[in-house]
């Protein structure tokens, strides 16, 4: 949960999050649309989390990218009737 705090407090959308067991720990993969400065900030935040052993930044995974291609940004719930109608009209 602390890992997700890093992007969420900066208002960064998280279209893809995956957590899976890895040996004695877990591996969390996030796909984020960020600029180089945000990458630096997030990596620093994550390294400061006591449960985080290592942080790596890389190019998007092909599978994850395919998932996100079908995801359309919408207003955060609960969205007003007007916002939902506007989004549907523009889709």
């Amino acid at each position, binding site marked *: *949960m*602390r890992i997700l*705090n890093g992007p969420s*407090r900066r208002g960064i959308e998280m279209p893809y999050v995956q957590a899976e067991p890895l040996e*004695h*720990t877990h591996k969390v993969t996030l796909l984020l649309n960020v600029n180089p400065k945000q990458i*630096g900030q997030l990596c*620093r*935040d994550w*390294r*400061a989390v*006591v*449960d*985080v*052993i*290592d942080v790596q930044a890389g190019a998007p995974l092909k599978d994850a990218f395919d998932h996100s291609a079908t995801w359309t940004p919408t207003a955060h719930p609960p969205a007003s009737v007007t916002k939902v109608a506007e989004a549907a009209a523009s889709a």
Partner: protein
Amino acid sequence: MPKGAEIVLRCVRAEGVDLVFGYPGGAIMPLYDALQGSGVTHILTRHEQGAVFAAEGYARSTGKVGVAIATSGPGATNLVTGIADAKMDSVPLVCITGQVRSPLIGTDAFQETDVFGMTLALTKWSRLVRSVEEIPEVIAQAFYWARSGRPGPVMVDIPVDMLKASAEFHGPVDFNPHPKPSDVHNDSTFCETLIALLQQAKKPVALIGAGVKLSGAVSDLRNLLDCLNIPTFATVHGMGAVVPDKPYYLGMVGMHGTRAANMALQETDCLLVFGARLDDRVTGEPSRFAPHARIVHFEVDPSQLDRVRPCELPVIGDLAETIPIALEQLQSASLPNWTTWRAVACGPERSEVDARGLAQPTIRFLDELFSRLPDKSIVVADVGQHQMWAAQRYRSSSPRGFITSGGLGAMGFALPAAIGVQLANPDMTVVCISGDGGFQMNIQELATVHRLNLPIKMVIVDNKYLGMVRQWQQLFYDRNYAETDMSDNPNFVAIGYAYGINGRRLRAEALLGEKINTGAEETLDSFLHSTKPELLAFECPPEANVYPMVPSGAALSEMLFEE
């Protein structure tokens, strides 16, 4: 088989804790039932916020882990400000809260709140206990994370059925985390770059933060500063780490820092930062901070690096390891002669304090108060103008001699924190300085002071305003004093008496002459020499401002001064 509550207390005791602060309630009741005979002394405050600030005062003045206990729901949520305060100022704190019975979690039960979720962003580590068997491991982890690396707050939330349940208990356990890829400089490779940067520097300076104290590196740092002999200044939490009488020491830096410190920081071409996080109160406008400086940053928490701009040389690791390594190499290095720079940066022209400011009654009062304090003293300040004046005027070579809420700036901090400080340091004179606004935020803790007969010397700087906000309204909002008027303050002396505490009043007129008048002198002396808790309400002019001041958006060199 012991119950979960007993196991908690035995594990807490095994961590070296003999004093906790708290307030009972339904979900935490089994823990309170187990206190007798546990070896843990509980201090009852009159609000959970009082408990967590008291635990902080205990921790800040000793370096040990402070422990605060509260019940579920509103008890737990009342801890949140203190947890945030501990996070911002790196205070080792363990908060233990009761929680509703496990089958009821998530049902919006009576006095249920998701305090685990609520404090995720504020705690270094936290856990909702899922079984009585995991209590020893959880307590061991909690204390480990509270103390290690950059200290901070942790939260352990225990459902009441876990506290009541019995389990096999084989004793407290040790916690050893999985290793991380290490950036620790336990060798001297960074020193080559450090020496090269210093050899190129014409105007080097040193900035000292709380990290030096937290790591226990004060003695080595002082030797290093004597070796370098460069203009040096401190954050509000770094004060006391440098001996204040050193000719190279320029005082506090930042929004209300000294003129000399701020000018030196803006002009430097090589900035050595020791255990400070370069927050906005220190840097002024970040984009205009120290524009010519190459930054060398000694820091244990990598997330604090490169916040303002990338540093030339990050030295990541425990300052207790990295500073001695640097000192050893610097002592044999050939460094430039910075005499001319020192003469300018530390010279009388910049160091001279405006005489009009010194004549201001509250400053005179604080000077008179501080001049009468014994060497073994600790000043605890609340938040506001009085805090900044106290920070500017109190000179102590004790690293933990000045305690205040810095990063969060939480009003109401001082009185309960002073309780924790006095209990941790029974042989010290503890002076608690609050404004009239902040004092009223945790005024109920006068009951705790009275019950324990703690000889805390409580000063209220009563200007009948929320002074710091009023100052900003005067300077930047055209004197629109919206909602800062406290002219209907109660009679603080009478409130002191109601709580069984002796009180007295001192008015600013007593300090207007060249010399403090005899009556005021006697008041101060009897106040400080009393062996009982004492309260002193100092009534002072409402429209005095803290100077120098770096306005929001301005560079450190663009200070405002007394008009």
